[in-house]
C-alpha cells in the first residue's frame, strides 16, 4: 500500500455541522424564492384557518369545561410552537418512508456520522417551521395578554422547559413511527392519521372528554403533556388532576425520547434497503 491513513484532524463538531446542513437546506429552499414564500404563506393560512374554526365553535360554547375562549387559544398555541421547532429537527422522520423508498437512507448509512443525526440535519422543512411558528407566536402573545398572564422569570422558565419537552415528546413519536416502518414496511399513513387526530383532540381542554378519549392523549399520543397540563398550570387551573402533572411533563419528553432512541438503534439493524 502506498498510502497511509490520513489524519482526521479537521473533523467538525456536530453542532457546527448541523448548522452547515441547515444553511444548505435554507439555500436549497430559497433557490426558488417565490415558491418558498408562497408555501410558507400556504402553511400559515391553512393552520390559521384551523384556529378560526375553533374560534367559531367556541363562540357557541363560551365555557368549555371551565375554560374560556382565550384560555383555549392559549392551549392551542403550545401545539403550534412545539410543532414548529419539532419539524425543523425531525423532518427526516416525517419523510422517513420516502427517504427509504428513494434509497436515500443507503446514502446516509455510508457517511461517518450518526444516522439519526443526519436525518435530523438533512433537508429540514423550515417553511413549515415558519408557518407554524408564526401561528404559534401570534396565538401565544395574543391569548396570554387577553388572559392576563404576568411573565415573571419562573413562568418564562416553565414555558421554555415545557416547549423543550413538548418538542421531544413529538420527536419521539415521529422516531417511533419510523421504527414501525422498519419493522412492518411502509406504515406512515396510518400513523400520520393517528397523530393528526390526537393533535386535534389536544386542542381542547382534557376535562371535556370522556375517559376513553382522554386516555388516547395521555397514554398513546401523550399530547396532554405537551400542552394541557403545562397550560393549566400557567393559567392557574387545577381541573382536579394531580398538581405534580405539569412538572412531570418535563420528564416525559426526555424519557420518551431516550426510549425512542434505543428503539431506533435496534430497529435500524432490520433495515433492508431498496431493490436497485
Amino acid at each position, binding site marked *: 500500500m502506498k*498510502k497511509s491513513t490520513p489524519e482526521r*484532524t479537521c473533523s467538525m463538531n456536530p453542532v457546527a455541522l448541523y448548522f452547515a446542513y441547515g444553511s444548505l437546506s435554507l439555500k436549497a429552499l430559497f433557490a426558488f424564492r417565490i415558491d418558498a414564500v408562497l408555501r410558507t404563506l400556504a402553511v400559515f393560512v391553512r393552520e390559521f384557518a384551523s384556529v378560526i374554526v375553533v374560534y367559531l365553535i367556541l363562540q357557541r360554547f363560551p365555557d368549555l369545561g371551565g375554560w374560556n375562549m382565550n384560555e383555549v387559544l392559549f392551549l392551542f398555541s403550545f401545539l403550534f410552537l412545539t410543532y414548529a421547532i419539532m419539524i425543523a429537527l425531525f423532518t427526516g422522520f416525517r419523510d422517513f418512508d420516502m427517504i427509504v423508498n428513494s434509497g436515500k437512507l443507503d446514502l446516509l448509512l455510508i457517511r*461517518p*456520522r450518526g444516522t439519526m443525526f443526519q436525518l435530523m440535519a438533512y433537508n429540514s422543512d423550515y417553511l413549515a417551521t415558519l408557518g407554524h411558528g408564526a401561528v404559534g407566536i401570534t396565538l401565544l402573545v395574543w391569548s396570554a395578554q387577553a388572559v392576563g398572564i404576568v411573565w415573571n422569570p419562573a413562568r418564562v422558565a416553565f414555558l421554555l422547559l415545557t416547549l423543550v419537552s413538548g418538542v421531544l415528546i413529538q420527536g419521539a413519536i415521529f422516531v417511533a413511527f419510523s421504527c414501525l416502518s422498519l419493522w412492518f414496511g411502509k406504515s406512515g399513513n396510518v400513523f400520520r392519521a393517528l397523530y393528526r387526530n390526537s393533535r386535534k383532540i389536544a386542542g381542547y381542554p382534557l376535562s371535556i372528554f370522556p375517559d376513553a378519549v382522554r386516555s388516547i392523549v395521555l397514554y398513546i399520543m401523550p399530547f396532554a403533556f405537551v400542552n394541557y397540563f403545562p397550560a393549566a398550570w400557567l393559567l392557574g387551573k387545577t381541573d382536579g388532576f394531580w398538581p405534580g402533572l405539569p412538572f412531570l411533563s418535563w420528564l416525559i419528553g426526555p424519557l420518551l425520547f431516550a426510549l425512542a432512541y434505543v428503539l431506533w438503534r435496534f430497529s435500524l439493524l432490520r*433495515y433492508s434497503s431498496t431493490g436497485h
Partner: protein
Amino acid sequence: MAILELTEACKTYRIVQRQDGISGALKNLFVPRYRDIQAVKRISFAIEAGEMVGFIGPNGAGKSTTIKLLTGVLVPTSGRVQVLGLSPFKDRKRYVGRIGVVFGQRTQLWWDLPVSDTFDLLRKIYGVPPQTYRRNLELFDDILGLADFRHQLARQLSLGQRMRADIAAALLHDPELVFLDEPTIGLDIVAKDKIRGFMQHINAERGVTMLLTSHDMQDMERTCQRVIVIDKGALLYDGSVSGLASLSGSRRSLIVDFNVHTRCEPISGTELIQENALRARFSFDRGSMQVHELVSQVAKKYDIADMTIEEPSIESVVKTIFSAQQARL
C-alpha cells in the same frame, strides 16, 4: 494480506406481503405475511490491498446486495463480513470514514444546489484537511473535467457529468477502498472511457483498492485484472479476466454492412455467417485473430458501409460458465 473478506455470507430479504383493504392494513400490522428472497447465498471471497476487482452477473444476481453488505448498509443474515479489520455494520461510523461508495443508480449530490456545495458539506462531514481537499479537487478537475460544471446545480447536469461528480464526491476524503455499483450505467462510450481512465489512475497512482460492478464486459476488460461472477446469489467464477475470456469461449463477432449486394468468402480463423446480401457476421476467437487484422482484410476486399464489433454479453458469459461447470460435475 486481504483487506476484505467475505466468508459464507448470506443475505435473505424478508418482504411483507401487502394485504389490501382496511382489514388487510390491520393484518399487515398484527399478523404480517412474509416472503423470503435469498439474494446472496454463502458467498466467499477475499480482496488484497491495491487490487481492482470487477463484479459481474445478470440482473438480480445479488451484486448490489453484496455491495451493501460490504459497505455496512445491510446486516448479513449469516456469515462473516470483515473489511479493513472492521465489521462494516457494527463499526459503521469508524468504517465508512475510510471507504468511498458510488451507487450509480442514484446520486449523492444535493439536487437543488451547486455541486460545489455538496463537496463542501462532504469535506465537513469527513473532516478532510484543507490541503488534501485542494489537491483532490485539482486532480478531479484535471482528469474528470469537473471545473466545467462544479458550480452548476446538480439537477442541471447531464448523466455523464452527474456520474463524474458523484465519483469525485466518493473520493474527496482519500478512501483506502472504493465500491462502485454500476458507475458507467447509461453512459456513452466517451463518458465511459473517461470514467474507466479515472478509476485506473486512482487505482494505479494511489493504490486505492476497488470493487466495481457493471453490465458492460468492456468495463471489466479495460480496467480490472480480476473478476468475480455471480448468478442467482451464488459465486460462479473468481479469477483473472483472461481466464474468464477463455472459459466463456471469448468469441466476438464482427458485423459488416455492405453498400452493394455481396457474397463473402470465408476468412481463415473466423466463422462466417452470411445473414443476407447486405450483412455478414464473422465470429472469431480473440486469441487467434486480431481485430484490426480482420477489419483491414475485410475492408480491402469489399465495399463496406459500416462495421461493428459485438462483445459477448454477460448473460451469455454466465450461461457458458454455468454449462461448463455442469459438464465438469
